[in-house]
């Protein structure tokens, strides 16, 4: 198969388009979920979609994508509602509320799955593919539904951008402005259920959690603005989705869902390490650099104070003494000072020929040491 044939393959096209749609919607909506500290909502809602999938199937009597997805949406929304009622009206905390709805709804889904299997309906085949997703079974008609949902969700985000932004960052202020905070909350939650619905076919209920969280977390490392974060999350979601889908198409036999999750998660890893400013590597470099600067400044002031204590600006301090004073080898710091012209080296005195020699401050070193001490003194004040 040449590259062109390969790209024209019907199944591969469907999978790639589906993965891209999933990346788009979950990247955008996930950004809000992560900012609102509701990252695990996606996990709960996707598990809670299972009973809805089954009920949609039972009602339609066949594997009709529309009714299945509608069922998933309804049961996801019900789960979110139940969670809110539980945590608002009892002493249970959010984590328990999430866990309770996740596990009991999923259990109900398992019960319904076995019930459907007992009905001996021939068209039930592949219903449990929603557990792990079955990207290869995506049809063109499924794509139209997924695309429609994505467009609707993105349209809503564009329309209510200002409101969503305010509710995400400062719900108290939003409420004081008279915004219907509770309704906006509910809307954002239901929209995550929409993203889950799009993801059911592609990655399945188990892995949806990461699809909501990962693009947003990765994008957050690169941008301080909501606009940038949402756009970038969408880009990361889409490209991660496409990459994972292509990878699984290339390596016949590897599941699509896990590959998509792993590609998006690698972007998270890279972002955490290398993003400018927030990147971990850069922070380590900065830390090391400032530690070194501190070290050579300390050595310089030590030399200065030794000279002052002996009332001799050309006092020769032995390197061994400076090492002992700091408790570590100051070789590097002294050479750095030497390169900058703050100190000069003298051979060891004849009475101790095996030591590393002696160091004397230059006039430039003297004034630099005074400058450092003065700035330290200012900070103390």
């Amino acid at each position, binding site marked *: 198969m040449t590259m062109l044939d390969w790209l024209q393959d019907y199944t591969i096209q469907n999978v790639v388009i589906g993965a891209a749609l999933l990346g788009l919607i979950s990247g955008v909506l996930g950004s809000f979920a992560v900012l609102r500290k509701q990252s695990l909502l996606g996990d709960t809602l996707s598990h809670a979609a299972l009973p809805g999938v089954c009920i949609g199937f039972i009602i339609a009597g066949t594997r009709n994508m529309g009714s299945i997805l509608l069922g998933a949406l309804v049961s996801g929304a019900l789960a979110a509602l139940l969670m809110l009622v539980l945590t608002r009206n009892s002493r249970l905390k959010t984590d328990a509320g999430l866990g309770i709805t996740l596990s*009991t709804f999923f*259990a109900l889904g398992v019960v319904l799955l076995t019930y459907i299997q007992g009905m001996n309906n021939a068209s039930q085949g592949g219903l*449990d593919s929603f557990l792990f997703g079955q990207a290869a079974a995506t049809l063109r008609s499924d794509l139209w539904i997924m695309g429609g949902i994505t467009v609707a969700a993105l349209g809503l985000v564009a329309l209510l951008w200002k409101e969503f932004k305010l509710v995400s960052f400062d719900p108290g202020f939003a409420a004081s402005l008279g915004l219907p905070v509770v309704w906006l909350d509910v809307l954002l939650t239901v929209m995550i259920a929409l993203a889950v619905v799009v993801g059911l076919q592609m990655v399945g209920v188990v892995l949806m959690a990461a699809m909501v969280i990962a693009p947003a977390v990765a994008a957050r490392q690169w941008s301080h603005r909501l606009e940038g974060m949402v756009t970038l999350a969408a880009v990361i979601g889409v490209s991660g989705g496409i990459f994972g889908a292509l990878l699984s198409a290339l390596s016949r036999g590897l599941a699509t869902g896990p590959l998509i999750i792993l590609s998006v998660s690698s972007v998270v890893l890279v972002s955490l390490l290398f993003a400018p400013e927030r990147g971990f590597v850069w922070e380590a470099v900065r830390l090391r650099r400032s530690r070194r600067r501190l070290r050579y400044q300390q050595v310089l002031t030590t030399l200065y104070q030794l000279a002052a204590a002996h009332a001799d600006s050309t006092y020769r301090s032995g390197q061994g003494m400076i090492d002992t004073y700091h408790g570590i080898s100051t070789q590097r710091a002294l050479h750095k000072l030497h390169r900058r012209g703050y100190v000069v080296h003298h051979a060891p005195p004849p009475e101790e020929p095996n030591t590393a020699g002696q160091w004397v401050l230059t006039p430039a070193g003297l004034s630099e040491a005074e400058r450092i001490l003065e700035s330290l003194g200012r900070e103390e004040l």
Partner: protein
Amino acid sequence: MLAAFFDNIPLMIMLVGMLVGIASSLVGTFLVLRGSSMLSDAIGHSIVFGIVIVWLLTHQQSGPIQIVGAALTGILTVFLTELLINTQRVKEDAAIGLVFPVLFSIGVLLLNLYARDVHIDTHTVLLGEIGFVWLDTVTLGDFRVPISLLSMGGMTLINGLFVLLFYKELKLATFDAPLAKALGFAPGVLFYALLMLTSSTAVAAFDAVGAVLFVAFVIVPPSTAYLLTNRLWLMFVYGALVSVLSSVSGYYLAVMWDVSIGGMMAVMTGVFLLLAFLVGPHYGLLAQMARRREQRRMNENRTLAVHLYNHESGPEQAVENVTRALREHLHWDAAKARRVVQRSREQGHILQNGEWLYLTPAGRAIAREILEPTQL
């Protein structure tokens, strides 16, 4: 007699269900109280990774090595999650949701690559099949004992011993971690031990109920107990009780409707939670509503008593301390005024003579309790 016991399939299934519930809620109680319930979800999913790795290395699907492997996977999950949190770039919930899907994905892909022809398939891992626990048995003396019964019994014992031995320390670390630390206990180490036991329990349970239903047994019975009591030891009792009841009722309902037994047991834990939420004695929704209504009535009685007390034996008594005045001065409608007057009379706070209302000594005490609280 004992042989009949071990050959009784329904009994074996229910017993395994109960043990899964009891072992899980022993550790789950602390997770729920600490606010880290979702870690059980993460652990439940990521042990798939551990199970696959141990299988690839040793070709053992169950047994002690698998349980140790799972414990390590659980630790790995929590370690990676805390590592992410400590970078301060990612919030706790996002960190949990990032780590376990990655481990789960790697597990699934490894299964795709290497383990096509084994019994571990991802469905079993996720869902389990408690209905088949009696198929895997070992011969112990003269009896054929289900392996799951043994492993769950063992886990229940270990978890129970852990809780019993470290009861005081766990209690302190859960409710006041800084104090525990200051007193020289190591709350962090205890917590990791707890999570290790959680993962081991997950692996022992996954044959029976699978990774996701396991989450139900960890979180739901302790949450139910939390809605019923304030005492830690009672939480364990209630948690065990909910587990037993859910296993029994879940089994019979599942058989009746011919559906997944493990699933039905988990659904039943949810039903009991809902019951506790609605009709629990103190924290239940109905009890809360009743309490609020009682409070409202008490306040109305107090208002009336204070009103009468303020104008008692004053010049305006004739205008104020009559039923008519309540409408204008307290803004009560006729029905409400009649209700409050009647209730206050029944409770002996006031006396009524035609239009006139008088405080009894009891009513006067109520008014003074509010107006002069320091002089009592």
